[in-house]
């Protein structure tokens, strides 16, 4: 099996599913300015997904395009972490997830932009600036919600807690990332991630989540039930017209 293909696909799937969820906020955000902001973030994530899936298709060498990979694979073939497929929840939960995910992506892309694979390094170099903005956006909101009203504090804490059990999967190491030279072993990012996330959560007056149970399985295609519905919606038009151009 082509390791680099599998690795690139993982990164692409994370970005794609994240984009699909972020986009759900457009026309439903707490204020118009936030519709626009989340639109930008979703577009960044989608752009990363497209570059990565396109490249994955090339690496595989079977003639699959970004769309073939996005629209014509089933749940078990998707290798994103479960964190990104969870339903958005309220605005606090969405911002909690964005803080966790974008901080991880930022550390990852920072490493990856120096890797030996030119294409991956290029994608990472562009994406690192984008996700730095996502981290900032999430940080601003976690601070405001955490230290805003009683209700927002309660919701922020609940959001941080709800997403927490899905964060360990981001840093799970496996044979593939240890074997593959260009890959960043995500376990090396965890310490710095924890430091950064802790700093924001503490400043926001929330407490660090305490749950110790952590879900896993996304990288092996074992997902929550939510992904099936997400994919059904994402894929159904393309699948109703196999072979069609759009």
């Amino acid at each position, binding site marked *: 099996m082509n390791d680099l293909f599998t690795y690139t696909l993982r990164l692409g799937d994370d970005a794609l599913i994240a984009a699909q969820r972020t986009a759900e906020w457009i026309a439903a955000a707490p*204020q118009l*300015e936030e519709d*626009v*902001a989340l639109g930008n973030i979703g577009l960044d994530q989608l752009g990363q997904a497209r570059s990565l899936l396109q490249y994955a298709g090339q690496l595989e060498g079977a003639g699959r395009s970004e769309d073939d990979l996005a629209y014509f694979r089933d749940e078990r073939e998707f290798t994103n972490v479960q964190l990104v497929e969870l339903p958005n929840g309220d605005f606090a939960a969405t911002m909690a997830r964005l803080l966790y995910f974008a901080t991880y992506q930022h550390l990852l892309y920072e490493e990856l932009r120096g890797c030996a694979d030119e294409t991956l390094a290029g994608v990472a170099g562009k994406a690192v600036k984008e996700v730095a903005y996502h981290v900032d*956006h999430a940080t601003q909101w976690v601070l*405001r919600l955490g230290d805003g009203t009683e209700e927002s504090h309660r919701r922020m804490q609940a959001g941080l807690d709800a997403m927490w059990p899905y964060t360990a999967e981001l840093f799970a190491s496996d044979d593939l990332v240890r074997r593959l030279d260009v890959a960043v072993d995500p376990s090396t990012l965890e310490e710095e991630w924890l430091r950064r996330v802790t700093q924001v959560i503490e400043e926001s007056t929330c407490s660090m989540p305490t749950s110790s149970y952590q879900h896993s399985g996304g990288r092996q295609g074992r997902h929550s039930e939510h992904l099936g519905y997400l994919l059904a919606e994402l894929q159904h038009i393309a699948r109703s017209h196999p072979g069609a151009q759009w």
Partner: protein
Amino acid sequence: MSGSGSLIEPLWEVFVRSRRGLSHVHVGSLHAPDATMALRNARDVYTRRQEGVSIWVVPAADITASSPDEKDEFFDPAGDKVYRHPTFYQVPEGVDHL
């Protein structure tokens, strides 16, 4: 409709420098709870197509503007100072770079 749903956030005026070497120009306004968010919102709303390299946000309430009632006293007196403009002066033929 709950009253709190209509909470009024402060209005900010947005100025964008479209590229280096040019002044910041007023482009519009937006609402934000504070300056930090105002700046970020301005980036998202007013520079989606690379329209800017630098942004100012100013609380609309902090702007002191000349009033249209004072228009005459304010601006008319400058009207007859034609000698402030280079076109006021005749330059003899053959004189360049002046």
